[in-house]
């Protein structure tokens, strides 16, 4: 964590020396009046999962920092946002309680920057029933992308897998991939199947080796992938498990026998040091939001907001970028609404559904919501390679090409975004 903070400081410094405004400028938030908001707060909720073995609170941390910045800069037409954060602790019961508290017991108008493996699966029905919109940021399961009332700024494993596999097929000559996923139907199986389907649609083939979350040993899944006849191994795992797989592969000296690709979880600033010299230059990772060296105006503003309003120990990672974006798009939408309607949940939900064409240098494509039973606005990204001390961009923003996105592209065309 200290490494992450140090690296984020280095990134900020790089932004300054590159001629950006970064720390030199004040953060820009909401109406940016410089005057503190007062009056009755507008209630907004957020749910994250934070307990052993994973912490998904980076997105709500970043959203809170942004809302604090908004409140210090005029709020929503002078009124502050009260951001109420709940922790599901990876427990379905607590996830349901958190949603009940925020949706039924509190007059929240929307939920922003949610991040969890659990809560979306448990609460998607609750959100639809109450017709409250969730502008999530750290989604990892199918319910988060295939529900009417949840939309996320992050991609989750499915598009990020597709981006990695597409790059491997086009640039590394991959013909047969083995996807090492978690044995969770709405996560590992769902996202590995999409990668295999992509290969089959393009004349290749694929298979999956699943790790049971309860089994400590990852070696057997790696060996299963190795024995599948694949030429490319897709490590579709959280960073800790991905590290364990790479270590087991190093032990068997398997680096040169396969292409090694991974979705976004392996884009973590502590990874290049942790994987060691053996892997530098040989692991390709899809980044669902802009890599840190891109450092456009919004990326610099994100760091400025974090430095001014977040705790020093709050992560500056991809989920934090996604949380910042959700909070920013939500605030912009609220500022565009009639001030008399901002407490009306139904009207806020309609306004969120009407969001379209929001852009940021942190995202490759435009952000939109729309009125549909599915939402996946972010389906383009970068490809990076792990090198000593960081990541090298090997492919700039590119759209993922898969039949999975046909309904999304149709919706975009209907909304005039194509």
């Amino acid at each position, binding site marked *: 964590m200290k490494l992450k903070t140090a690296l984020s400081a280095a990134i900020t410094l790089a932004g300054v020396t590159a001629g950006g405004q970064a720390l030199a400028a004040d953060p820009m938030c909401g109406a940016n009046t410089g005057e503190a908001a007062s009056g009755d707060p507008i209630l907004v909720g957020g749910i994250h999962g934070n307990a052993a*073995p994973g912490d998904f609170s980076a997105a709500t941390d970043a959203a809170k920092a942004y809302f604090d910045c908004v409140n210090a800069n005029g709020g929503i037409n002078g009124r502050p946002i009260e951001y109420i954060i709940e922790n599901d602790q990876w427990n379905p019961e607590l996830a349901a309680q958190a949603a009940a508290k925020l949706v039924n017991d509190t007059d929240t108008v929307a939920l922003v920057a949610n991040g969890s493996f659990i809560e979306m699966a448990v609460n998607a029905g609750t959100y639809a029933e109450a017709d409250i919109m969730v502008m999530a940021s750290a989604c990892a399961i199918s319910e988060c992308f295939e529900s009417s009332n949840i939309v996320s700024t992050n991609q989750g494993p499915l598009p990020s897998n597709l981006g990695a596999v597409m790059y491997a097929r086009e640039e590394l000559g991959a013909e047969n991939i083995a996807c090492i996923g978690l044995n969770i139907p709405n996560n590992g199986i769902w996202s590995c199947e999409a990668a295999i389907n992509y290969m089959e649609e393009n004349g290749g083939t694929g298979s999956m080796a699943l790790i*049971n979350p309860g089994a400590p040993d990852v070696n057997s899944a790696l060996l*299963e992938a190795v024995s599948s006849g694949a030429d490319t191994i897709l490590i579709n795992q959280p960073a800790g498990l991905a590290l364990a797989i790479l*270590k087991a592969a190093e032990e*068997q000296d398997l680096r040169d026998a396969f292409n090694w690709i991974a979705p976004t979880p392996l884009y973590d600033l502590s990874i290049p040091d942790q994987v060691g010299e053996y892997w530098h230059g040989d692991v390709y990772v899809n980044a669902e939001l802009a890599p840190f060296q891109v450092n456009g105006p919004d990326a610099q503003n994100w760091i400025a907001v974090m430095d001014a309003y977040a705790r020093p120990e709050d992560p500056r990672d991809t989920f934090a970028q996604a949380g910042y974006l959700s909070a920013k798009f939500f605030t912009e939408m609220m500022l565009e609404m009639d001030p008399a309607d901002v407490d009306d949940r139904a009207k806020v939900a309609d306004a969120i559904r009407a969001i379209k064409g929001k852009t940021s240098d942190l995202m490759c494509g435009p952000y939109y919501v729309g009125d549909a039973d599915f939402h996946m606005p972010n389906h383009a990204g970068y490809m990076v390679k792990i090198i000593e001390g960081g990541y090298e961009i090997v492919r700039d923003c590119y759209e993922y090409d898969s039949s999975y996105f046909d309904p999304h592209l149709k919706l975009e065309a209907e909304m005039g975004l194509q």
Partner: protein
Amino acid sequence: MTRTQLWNWALYIALMALILGWLGWGKPFKIQGLFLASGLAVGSLYALGGIGMVVLFRASGVLNFSSGAAGAAGAMTAWQLAEWGVWPPATWLACILVALAITLAYGRFLAPRLAWREPVVKAVATLGFALIILGLVSFLWIDDPRSITLPTDKMGIKFLGLRITVTRLIVFFASIGIVIGIWAFLAKTAIGLQMRSLANDRDLSALLGIPILKVETIAWGISGVLAGFTGLMFADLIRLEPTVITFMVIPSIAAAICGRLDNLALVLIGGLSMGVIENMLTLSNALKGARPIAPFVIAAVVLLYSQRGTRLTFGGRE
């Protein structure tokens, strides 16, 4: 060796050959070898955890669920010291010392207060202690990808085309060496005799003047050292995640049960068999989902087999 024991060994060998042959059927020998080598390393860790439990249980009557958490705390300390640039061997030693200190602290200050309680109460108390340690470790080190690498990971031998690292060999031979060493310690030394006496009848041993606290402290110490060593090896070979290392104790219990909480050689064989079968199950599409329960199914089968022909009555066991 009695005729029954010979029959049991023959049955075990035949069953293992049948299971492994069935699971590996049609797969190239190299692939089978990879799974076997991987399973032996994991099984060695299960066995090491089980051995530590049995040694302590025999001396103190405590089934210690906190050894995994002590190992996790030790492994995280080793990682932290390595991050600070401490000389690597000192970090490995620190891992063992931290696990030893945690285990001794419980054994010296908390366990005596529960000495006269039922075995279940003693076991549940160690589980509570494990959760406290895990909570503290998770508080000190937030969730982040981490790894421990030993120099022996880079060294390896080629055996029938597969590479086996020296770390895996260390774990495998250490588990055998520790069983032999502890057997010799229990059989040949005065402290070992006192431990066996305590295991046999605690009240009578106290009346005979055996220094119970001293003997138990030594047993907790052995358990702590084993927990530290196992934690370090687990962090290197499997992964450095406190929760995963803490709950490594679960399959270790299954290994200990295979030895009926008494026979160290059977704990070793049970642990190794569990690791190998668990890994080889990956080769079966139908059964790979059952991997996490494999150790417990094996332990249950062993228990049922060892209880055959006996029945519980009001007077005890016949």
